[in-house]
C-alpha cells in the first residue's frame, strides 16, 4: 500500500519539501479491517522504567500492528526510605507504567488484563488515541477480566496514558500509580528545527508522580490494610492539593545510587518525562536540553538549549542531550523543595574525559588573601 502520505514523506526526505516535517496520517482514508488484518504484526515485551523496550528510531518497514500485553497489578509499595507504604495500583507492576514505543501509522493493540487477585475495576485512557475517552470507554475491566483495544497512532510525540474508571476513582487511581507513557515516533525518526535527523544512543523514561499519604495524630504516615481502607483518608489529603511525596519512578531514590542512570561523554540521551496529574519542570544540573519537545509532540520543532523545561500535568515531554563532561548529574524537578525534600531527584553517572575548556577550577578554595 503506497499512500499519498508516504509519497510526501519520500519527497520530504529528498529535500523537496523540507519544511513539511510530517503529513498527518489522520488525513488518509480509513483502512478497512481487511487491510489492517493484512498488516504485519509484532509483539513487544515491555520493560520496567527507566528502561525502554528495544525499538527502531527510524522505521525500517511500513506500518504494523504492534501487540502489547499489560496486567494491572494492585499491590502495596514502599515509596521512601522510611518504608512509607502506598496501596499502589499499577500498569504492568511498575510506577509509572512502562513506556510503549511505536511509529506513526502503526496500530497499537493492547491486551489489558485485570487479574482475579485485584479488587477494583480499571481501564486505560490513551492521550494518543482518538475517540472513546482515549479508550477508557471501551476498556473497563473487572477483576478476572481482560480486554483488547486497538487504536491507530495518528500523531507523533510522547503521550500519557492512565486509568480513568470514573468520578473520584480517576484521580485516586492516577495518584496511586496508574499512569504511563507511549511514544509515537515519526517513521523517519526525530528531526531538528531544520528537518535534519536527530538520533539518541540511549533513552531513559522518567515518570514523575506525587503521592498523598495520610498521617496519624502524631504526624506519622499511616499504613492501610487495603486500598479500600485507605481511600477516604487519601481523598481528603488529595483534595488539599499538598502532596506528601513528589517522586520519580514510584519512590524516593528510585533513580539514585545503585539505580542511577548511566551514560558516557559524547553519548546522546533522550529523556522522556511524564507527569499525569501535576505540572513539573525538569532540569539537568550541569547540563541542558539540547533539543526539547516540551509539549512532547514531534510535529513541532524542538526548542533548543533549554535550562529548564515545563511538563504540563497530564502530558509527557522529551529532551535530547549530549553529555559533554563526566561526573554526577542530578536531574530534578526544579521546584527544589520538591526535588530535595519530597523526592523528585534522579542521578546520571557519566563517565569519560574531563574537558578543561568547558570548565576548570582555576584556584582551589582556600583562605582569602590578606592584602
Amino acid at each position: 500500500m503506497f499512500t499519498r502520505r508516504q509519497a510526501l514523506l519520500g519527497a520530504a526526505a529528498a529535500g523537496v519539501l523540507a519544511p513539511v516535517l510530517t503529513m498527518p496520517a489522520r488525513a488518509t482514508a480509513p483502512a478497512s479491517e481487511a487491510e489492517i488484518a493484512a498488516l504485519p504484526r509484532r509483539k513487544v515485551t515491555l520493560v520496567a522504567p527507566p528502561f525502554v523496550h528495544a525499538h527502531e528510531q527510524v522505521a525500517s518497514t511500513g506500518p504494523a500492528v504492534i501487540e502489547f500485553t499489560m496486567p494491572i497489578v494492585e499491590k502495596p509499595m514502599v515509596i521512601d526510605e522510611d518504608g512509607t507504604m502506598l496501596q499502589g495500583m499499577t500498569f504492568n507492576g511498575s510506577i509509572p507504567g512502562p513506556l510503549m514505543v511505536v511509529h506513526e501509522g502503526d496500530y497499537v493493540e493492547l491486551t489489558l488484563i485485570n487479574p482475579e487477585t485485584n479488587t477494583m475495576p480499571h481501564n486505560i485512557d490513551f492521550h494518543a488515541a482518538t475517540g472513546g475517552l482515549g479508550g477508557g470507554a471501551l476498556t473497563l475491566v473487572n477483576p478476572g477480566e481482560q480486554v483488547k483495544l486497538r487504536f491507530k497512532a495518528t500523531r507523533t510525540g510522547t503521550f500519557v496514558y492512565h486509568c480513568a474508571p470514573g468520578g473520584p476513582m480517576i484521580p485516586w487511581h492516577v495518584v496511586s500509580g496508574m499512569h504511563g507513557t507511549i511514544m509515537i515516533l515519526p517513521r523517519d525518526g526525530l528531526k531538528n528545527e531544520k528537518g535534519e535527523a536527530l538520533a539518541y544512543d540511549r533513552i531513559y523514561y522518567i515518570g514523575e508522580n506525587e503521592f498523598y499519604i495520610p498521617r496519624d495524630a502524631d504526624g506519622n504516615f499511616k499504613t492501610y490494610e487495603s486500598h479500600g481502607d485507605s481511600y477516604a483518608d487519601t481523598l481528603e489529603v488529595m483534595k488539599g492539593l499538598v502532596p506528601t511525596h513528589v517522586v520519580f519512578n514510584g519512590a524516593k531514590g528510585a533513580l539514585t545510587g545503585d539505580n542511577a542512570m548511566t551514560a558516557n561523554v559524547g553519548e546522546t540521551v533522550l529523556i522522556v518525562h511524564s507527569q499525569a496529574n501535576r505540572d513539573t519542570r525538569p532540569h539537568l544540573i550541569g547540563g541542558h536540553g539540547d533539543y526539547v519537545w516540551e509539549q512532547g509532540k514531534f510535529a513541532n520543532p524542538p526548542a533548543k538549549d533549554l535550562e529548564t523545561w515545563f511538563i504540563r500535568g497530564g502530558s509527557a515531554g522529551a529532551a535530547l542531550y549530549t553529555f559533554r563532561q563526566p561526573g554526577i548529574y542530578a536531574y530534578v524537578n526544579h521546584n527544589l523543595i520538591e526535588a530535595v525534600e519530597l523526592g523528585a531527584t534522579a542521578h546520571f553517572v557519566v563517565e569519560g574525559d574531563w574537558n578543561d575548556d568547558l570548565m576548570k577550577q582555576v584556584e582551589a578554595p582556600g583562605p582569602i588573601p590578606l592584602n
Partner: protein
Amino acid sequence: MPTRFLDAAAFAAAVLLPLAASVLSPGSGDQTRAAEAVVQVPASEMDFPLPGEFLRNSRPAPSPMVRIEVPSFEIMRRQVGLAAYGECVAAGACEAADAPQTEADVPVTGVSWIDADAYARWYAGVTGEPWRLPTAEEMAIAAAERFAGEAFSVAADDPANPAVGWIRRYREEAGARRPPDPAPRPRGHYGPNSLGLEDFGGNVWEWTATCYDRTTLDPTGEGAEGMTRNCGVRVLEGRHRAFMSTFIRDGRSGGCAVGTPPENLGFRLVRDVRPSLVARLRAFFFPQSDPAARA
C-alpha cells in the same frame, strides 16, 4: 609542623580552662544528683584520620592520618539519656529535643550541637564538674576498636579529571547504603566496646566539639599551607564520620558524606581527670605556665 595537626594550644585550652574553674570554685556541685557511670580512658595514642576537607596541589586529598596523643579523661559510659536531657529542659536551660516521648531508657536524639552544648554547660553547672563535649580525638580514643572515621576509600584519582573521584565516591556511597533504622534502642542495646564504652556506632551519631576545617596541604602532604575553620559545622562520630551545621537536629537532613545518613543525632560528655593537688596548685598560682592562659 602545622599546629592544626595536634592543635595543641586549643586542645590544652579545652582541657585546662574548666580545671582552673573547678579549683577556684570547689564544692559548688549538686551532691544529690545521681552520678552518670563513667569510663576511665587512660592517656592514649592512636593513628587518627583528621576530620575536615583537605586540598593538595589544588585537588581534594585524602584525610591525613596523624599520630595523636590524648591525655587521660573520663567519658560517660552511655549516651546522655532522654530523661536526663529532660531535666535540663525542665530547668529551662535546654530546648525540648525532637525525639519521640517514651518511658524507656533511651538516649536523647533529635538534638543539635547547640542543644548538646547547652546541656553540657547546664550539666557542668549543676554538678560543679567540668563536663563538656568530647573532641573528635577523644571520641576516637574512647570508641577504640569501634572507631570508623572516614568512610571514603583512599584512591589515586585522576588529577586531570575530577569526575573520576566524584563517581568513585558516589558509587561507594551507593554501595554503603542500607535501610534506615531510626527507632531509638534502650541504652546499652549496642553493648560495650573494649573500654566499656557502650553503644558507640549504633544508630545514634555523637556530636563532638571539633570544628570543620578546610586545610590546604603543602605539596609534600606533610604540613599545611593554610586552613579555614568553620565552627558553624561540627564533626560527628559514629558508624562513619559526619559533618553537620550546629543547628541540625535530623541527621538525614544535615548532609552526610557517605552511606546512609545518621539516623539520629545524640551525644555524651567527657570530663577531665582531676589532676593531682600539686598540679592544681601550680595551675592556680602560676597561670602563666598554663598553656590555656597563653592562648
